[in-house]
């Protein structure tokens, strides 16, 4: 596709049009159910931003989506599609729980937290290692292997929770609650207006990871190699970049970032390791990365938007019982469709629109 559009159209207008199309179709779905879409949007925005506790929940969801969005984005830069954030985050929860259970009794949270970050990163990266290595050395399609690893992770974690980690005598497949040193301070401890929302200080670590990803991708040699590899594999090989190294290192970073999500959920919100705590947040990362165009700033904005959707959607389900929380999943799917698979749909007409106003060059004689 020829790129003769102004930069602001390419980077700003087209993504905006795509996301608008997704929301318009979502509005049609609401109309089809027989509710008023404008009223639904008002309910959602108020539920997510209109009062302290709601905003706290929005920030809590946003934290998850920043981590999983960054994970998908880093892989995108190297031309890889990591669809396994779900499984990587699930396994990372085990790493976080092991750290919190063993250190939480004796150490304060600010000593446990760095170790838990390492635990989350190591376990998440480890779950991405095998698909990465198979892609790099055996050519197995990474999309398929990471999907398979999501299911394997689910079986493994259910087995561990039910047979190994469960509190004896309890029916719930979950570990014991962590001691205070194994939990993160809530934002509500600092700002009481956040009510009972589970937003916690892991959001600052999420923002830190955004800075890390920005520096990694645009300011380091490794990031340059990753982008080169993503742009053209043959050119990268010609330039002496090792495909095996790039694929494995990129996926380890991606898996580690996905794993960080467990800090917010396991150490922050639940304060114990629960069955299926990832609950699809890993997949939301795909929508967030596509919408944020794989740039940390875009990802923060997209994650905030999805945070608003998740919290607002929960409130909407109370206000309009005909619209259940599953509306969010539909919107998420439509965003992935319009911002991802159909991203070039509006491009031809925009090219026509923007080139018509400029003088047409006379053919050279």
């Amino acid at each position, binding site marked *: 596709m020829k790129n003769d559009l102004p930069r602001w159209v390419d980077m700003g207008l087209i993504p905006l049009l795509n996301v608008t199309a997704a929301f318009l179709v979502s509005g049609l779905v609401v109309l089809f159910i027989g509710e008023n879409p404008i009223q639904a949007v008002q309910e959602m925005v108020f539920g997510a931003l209109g009062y302290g506790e709601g905003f706290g929940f929005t920030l809590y969801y946003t934290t998850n989506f920043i981590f999983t969005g960054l994970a998908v984005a880093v892989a995108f830069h190297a031309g890889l599609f990591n669809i396994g954030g779900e499984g990587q985050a699930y396994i990372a929860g085990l790493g976080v729980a092991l750290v919190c259970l063993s250190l939480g009794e004796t150490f304060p949270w600010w000593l446990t937290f760095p170790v838990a970050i390492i635990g989350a990163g190591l376990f998440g990266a480890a779950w991405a290692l095998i698909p990465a290595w198979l892609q790099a050395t055996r050519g197995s399609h990474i999309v398929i292997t990471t999907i*398979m690893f999501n299911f394997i992770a689910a*079986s493994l974690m259910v087995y561990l929770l039910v047979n190994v980690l469960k509190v004896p005598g309890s029916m719930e497949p979950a570990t014991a609650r962590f001691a205070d040193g194994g939990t993160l301070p809530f934002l509500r401890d600092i700002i009481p207006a956040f009510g009972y929302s589970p937003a916690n200080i892991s959001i600052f670590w999420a923002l830190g990871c955004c800075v890390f990803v920005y520096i990694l991708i645009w300011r380091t040699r490794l990031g340059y190699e990753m982008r080169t590899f993503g742009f053209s594999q043959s050119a990268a090989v010609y330039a002496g970049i090792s495909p095996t190294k790039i694929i494995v290192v990129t996926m380890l970073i991606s898996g580690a970032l996905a794993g960080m999500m467990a800090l917010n959920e396991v150490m922050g919100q639940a304060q114990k390791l629960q069955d299926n705590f990832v609950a699809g947040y890993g997949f939301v990362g795909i929508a967030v990365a596509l919408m944020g165009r794989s740039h940390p700033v875009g990802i923060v904005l997209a994650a905030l938007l999805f945070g608003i959707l998740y919290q607002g959607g929960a409130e909407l389900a109370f206000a309009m019982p005909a619209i259940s929380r*599953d509306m969010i999943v539909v919107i998420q*799917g439509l965003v992935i469709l319009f911002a991802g698979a*159909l*991203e070039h749909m509006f491009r031809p007409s925009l090219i026509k629109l923007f080139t018509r106003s400029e003088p047409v060059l006379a053919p050279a004689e």
Partner: protein
Amino acid sequence: MEDFLIKLPLLLDSMIRLSVPLLFAALAGLFSERSGIFDISLEGKMLGAAFAAAAAAAVMDSALAGLLAGILVSVALALVHGFASISQRGNQIVSGVAINFVALGLTVLLGQAWFSQGGRTPQLSPDGRFGELTLPFATQLADVPFLGVLYEGIISGHNILVYVAFLMVPLSWWVLFRTRFGLRLRAVGENPAAVDTAGVSVVWLRYRAVIVCGVLCGFAGAYLSIAQASGFTKDMTAGRGFIALAALIFAKWKPVPVMMACLLFGLLQAIPIQYPQISLPGIGIVPGQVMQALPYVLTVVLLAGFIGKATPPKAGGVPYVKER
């Protein structure tokens, strides 16, 4: 051991029942992927079809109407995937992910809005379901040793869709390997430029492949909600679309091996149901989760190339650009 023998016919019976949705979906994927369109949205199409089938069957009280509605919705979703991957040359994986989410959300959302039963559809009457058929002479032959059990207990007594599924295997083989359409479909998945040069439309061929994929996913979904169960429940496909995808890869994109792989994965699902406590000498009791994870582990091992090599169609996942 005696217990094992008594339960064996039951095990094989449930293996067949559990492999049917996998078989429909894997054959669906076979047509799509052989034409060069990767499809990870088998799951979403099945789910959409399962909901549409159960909703239509409940409202119209007819299993056939349900099946048609299921196929219609599944084909519609397949056309969205086709539009994104063929006409718009979008990323086929991204499009597949999108369709899975839209189906997952929309089925429950509409189910709740229409029937107010927490996303379920109403319980179906016998007319709204595909009932079990007793094949001719099954009851008379039941007492014949071995063959009688095989015929009466395992082959007979399924609903019509089970037999349709297994008939689809030779039919798919015939279409793909003995018709002109099949030859062109396979060619377009390997080398679309050559097909284009021969004056055959790549776009129209791929659209037809995607529509066939939609029809078969429609059968898979309808089987789940109006033949195996009697109504739709949230996320009732529960990853079967991905197991079907695994079976397709495991079978190296060939129809008869697809059936074998689906039977194997159906067996792996059936074992924990019939034998909740299996113990192997030296290992002890095998946890049910091992059986659940085994299809995925086997597929990864196969993809890694340690047992044979699974080579996907060469042009799979690559949009066709004519100008090049």
